[in-house]
């Protein structure tokens, strides 16, 4: 499960299982996994904080 965090200067994806902060960069394999998760019909909600 993922959430989208509005950070001070940009946005990042937060992987909730391990609180990993994932940049929205095509070559990042964790971002690719996020995109695959979205392609399965899932939607990331706004990050609610740690």
């Amino acid at each position, binding site marked *: 499960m993922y959430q989208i965090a509005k*950070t001070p200067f940009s946005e990042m994806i937060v992987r909730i299982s391990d609180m*990993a*902060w994932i940049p929205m960069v095509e070559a990042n394999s964790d971002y690719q996994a996020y995109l695959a998760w979205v392609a399965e019909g899932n939607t990331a909600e706004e990050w609610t904080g740690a």
Partner: protein
Amino acid sequence: MAISSGLGSSALLPAGLGFRNVLINGGFDIWQRGTSAAFTTSASTSFLADRWSGYRGAAGSTQSRVSAGLDGFQYAMRVQRDSGNTSVFRQYIGTSLETSTATKLANKPVVLSFYARAGANYSSASNGLNVLLSSGTGTEANGVHVNFTSATSVVSTVATLTTSYQRFTYFATMPATSSQLLVQFDFAGVGTAGADDYFEITGVQLEQNYQPTPFEQRPYGVELALCQRYFQRLLNGADHGNEMVVTVQATGSTGGYGFKALLMTMRTAPTLTSSQSTDAFLCKSAGGNNLFMNAMTFDLSTPRSFLLVIGVASGLAAGDASIVLANSVTAKIDASAEL
């Protein structure tokens, strides 16, 4: 020393010269994440030894660093079905290469070599260890967890292990088009695992060549630097108590930002994680007060740097500089740009 003209023009140097081995950490010297962990089905948690990713579709197996017990090597990777485990799911370990490396090997003769031995209770059929060198034509990816595009099994065979180390060597020619590359080993256990149902492997080398050369032992610092293109443990409280993370500038009484340069340029903008908890990190304010951090997040991840965003309950003053320190053996910050 003359360079064999038969190998043709290449940025990869032939026998006798350095950097023959295109695999990183083939001697299993670098273990930034730790030295023992269970296999998982998740790509994001599959790495333990640097550059080596594991996979098993069931619980009950472990990858770990062990003393090699082999002249010329300090460590080996042990892939073990835990004692009493009855699952026959395969256990895979593999290392995937970037397109920048795969393309240089396209249409070239290569030799894959490694040392391996079995534990006393190794249960794989006929003591077999599956060996795979796979090439694909798609975007660089972790081949242990992702199917390659138009995958070609350049080497696909079974090595027969004994309880003593043997060196295995395999010869092949890479496909004319190669942008994905994987070296992988796996076995499936049979029956109920005994105490020593494992194989150990080290000295894994893939080189552009017509014949195998001795495993290339690169200096530790060189191998570590190669690994840090893909993963960096930027702080480890278990190794260095009170290791400083970064200097931050407070933006108010409860938080601030700090710029952190990565140890070297990474493959891509990394995923960032921390072990932030109540007392894992400490913020020493400009006034000298020790403030427990209650938040650590990240921003502006690039291959060269990122921004650390911290939070405390109170006690900072906007504009002041403060220091963020490890305060626990559990404190760690990781940057991962793995395939």
